[in-house]
């Protein structure tokens, strides 16, 4: 395995993160936006793993472990909030959610 491969893994992580950001801007369905956030978390995980491989340091692996745990907790709470909003508004369109907007 060559250093080139690690560099390309970093570029892939960058591309995935950018796709996730554009998705958050473009999509209006709240569940799709939520999935774009998960994609961005995964892109960062890939960068962690690539740097961990490059420097031979296991701290990156442990951080990915924590990111996975926090992502699971975040998905559970986030989806519960989405269900509860859907019950009130009967839609998943983010433009309809303006309860907290002044």
């Amino acid at each position: 395995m060559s250093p080139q491969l690690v560099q390309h893994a970093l570029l892939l992580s960058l591309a995935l993160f950018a796709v996730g950001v554009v998705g958050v801007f473009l999509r209006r369905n709240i569940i799709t936006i939520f999935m774009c956030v998960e994609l961005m978390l995964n892109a960062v995980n890939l960068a962690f793993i690539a740097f961990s491989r490059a420097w031979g340091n296991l701290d990156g692996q442990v951080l990915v472990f924590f990111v996975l745990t926090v992502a699971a907790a975040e998905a559970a709470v986030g989806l519960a909030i989405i269900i509860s909003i859907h019950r009130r508004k009967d839609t998943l369109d983010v433009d309809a959610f303006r309860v907290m907007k002044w």
Partner: protein
Amino acid sequence: MTLTLFHAILFYAFGGLALGGALVMVSQRNPTYSAFALIVTLVALSAEFGLLGSPFIAALQIVVYAGAIMVLFLFVLMLLSVKAEARVEGEGRVFKLVALALGALLAAEVGSALLAAKTPMAGGFDASARAVARLLFSPQYLYVFEATSILILASLVGAVALARREGGR
């Protein structure tokens, strides 16, 4: 030599699959299709983790992401009556262009930092479950690890409380 070549071919094939899945996910209007495209991306990323020498994280990625989180997503999608995103007249081309431009700007910014990063190849890399667990349960990370279990418990209680129907029962 041929093994290295095979390794590289697999690496780029799964990388392309991951990127393709992400692009399909973002371009779909129906969130159910987006969820399936995201599963493709997550599995391809798991293969990338394995190819970068991290079998433990690769297995965890499948179990936690593809196994738990995406099942939760699909469960919610089927629980709620999900329709494809309606086309809105006002959603102009200008907005899309601005979104793409902002994404490209961010990519250029982070890309310049990533390309400047040094990527040496450490020899004797061992990221097996045993090696990762040794670090994870060392005093450095042990308390953080215990804190995440409290976080999981809190999110469990929070999710049940939030998703419950109004007015008790």
